[in-house]
């Protein structure tokens, strides 16, 4: 049943110009930045050769590209998820799902995987771009893969947060603003500590911190736990909210 709902959600997303325009814009920005990074690398290539522990092409080109892609997700995901439940509520199609023999969990997970399928396409396009470097330069496959893993974690947890706000608010725009607000807060929350060296809770809360750790090639279970916790708690709240109207008070 989750598959049925996910398939419809994905079809609906890919039928709108929204998905394609977002994919195209992300590609455009990344490609531009990609070329700029290559340019930078070529400029300093000779200098880098003389340094003993110089960063390779992966550190100079691939990791920054993933960083930019991650930042674009902050803008991209709220727009993608904002109408997934609230749009159904507004268009009056939610009763179809609610009067069918499906649970709220199946509805939320179906939506999640539907959005996930579009994000997977985005992930693929992001993953393919650095591979073109392999014609001319050696890539650190380990760093490349862990960067992609970090990006996938980010996609999943952001989609979950967006979905949560889409169930909490009736107006899609409000859901988008709240999603963007929370995600950018989590992104930047440890800036306060960067000045004062006081690591701890704020550093742990920062998604940028976990993302950078992972994409630099350091696979740490704490980072996985962070993204998994964000993902599951957001989905749990979404399910709880969707059940709200149907469960006796």
């Amino acid at each position, binding site marked *: 049943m989750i598959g049925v709902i996910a398939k419809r959600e994905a079809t609906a997303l890919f039928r709108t110009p929204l998905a394609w325009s977002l994919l195209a814009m992300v590609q455009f920005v990344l490609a531009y930045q990609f070329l700029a990074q290559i340019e930078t690398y070529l400029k300093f290539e000779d200098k880098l050769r003389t340094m003993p522990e110089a960063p390779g092409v992966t550190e100079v080109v691939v990791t920054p590209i993933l960083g930019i892609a991650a930042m674009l997700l902050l803008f991209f995901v709220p727009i993608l998820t904002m109408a997934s439940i609230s749009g159904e509520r507004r268009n009056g199609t939610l009763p179809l799902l609610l009067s069918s*023999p499906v649970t709220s969990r199946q509805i939320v997970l179906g939506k999640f995987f539907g959005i996930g399928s579009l994000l997977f396409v985005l992930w693929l396009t992001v993953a393919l771009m650095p591979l073109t470097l392999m014609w001319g330069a050696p890539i650190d496959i380990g760093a490349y893969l862990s960067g992609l893993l970090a990006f996938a974690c980010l996609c999943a947890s952001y989609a979950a947060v967006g979905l949560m706000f889409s169930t909490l608010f009736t107006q899609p725009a409000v859901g988008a603003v709240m999603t963007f607000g929370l995600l950018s807060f989590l992104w930047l929350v440890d800036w306060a500590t960067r000045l004062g060296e006081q690591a701890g809770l704020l550093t742990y809360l920062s998604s940028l911190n976990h993302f950078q750790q992972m994409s630099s090639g350091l696979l740490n279970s704490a980072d996985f736990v962070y993204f998994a916790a964000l993902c599951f708690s957001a989905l749990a709240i979404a399910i709880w909210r969707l059940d709200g109207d*149907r469960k006796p008070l």
Partner: protein
Amino acid sequence: MPDAPLLSAQKLTRYYHGRKVLHGIDLELRRGEVLGFLGPNGAGKSTTMNILSGNLAAHSGQVVICGHDLVRSPLLAKRHIGYLPEIPPLYIETTVDEYLIFCARLRGLSSGESKLALEKAKHDCELTEVGGRLIGNLSKGFRQRVGIAQALLHSPAVVILDEPTNGLDPNQIRAVRATINALAERHAVILSSHVLSEVQALCTRVAILHHGRIEFNETVEQQLDGMRVQLLNIDSEPIWERLDGVTNATALGGGNYRVVVDDYEKAADAVCNFAKQKGWKLRELRRDTSPLETLFVDLTCNDTSATP
């Protein structure tokens, strides 16, 4: 169990922002019954239908569909529900075929069963020619029919239709009525409508809802023929049931009565004779040409007469 009700609702109540909008709704529906749900706007019709279809929880009370409690085992109960809300729940970016297949799969039909159900529903609702078109490009009448097709697709035991003929032209209304009539043989149908003649033509039973209470719940035949009587100078309440041809009567105040009859000629004679015999003045006696409308207005328009 041929006689067990397909749907039974008991003592449903619901509050909105602290205001009680449903005051203990009781309903029972058996196979072959078509219940017409009437009431002024805001009486609680849509709220009741939302509760019966599992979209909204009642604050108290119970809904049982085909023996399954809607709250305790919603998945089993909802397999037997087909629901058309006031706004048809359509995805405008999908084609009619895709949409109906999705609905069928959502109701737990296999992919093969879905295809059969799709063909049958399209045939029943006259949608065969528009199967490949986007729902967003269809006219209102076609959209309404897609909404109805969606509710009948999985051949549910209980079909709940909120204003099914809304927005249709007269020919389409006739077609939808024929569909509902055909349905009634094997299913139980609840439909709400503002068109009283439609309810009279389609329904076997009428429930009138007013201020969140069911004020009237009877079979249609019992109410089909009636008359209005005004008696003056009466010294005791007449015992209407004893009169020839009279089924029952309701006092409306001021000596006015709404009398339900099974034989108008007999009943009119009996009332005249009875009044003469008692020495009462018969001020008015007229046949009700549209008894359902009279009933509706009596129950919902004039509050003092509705709650004696």
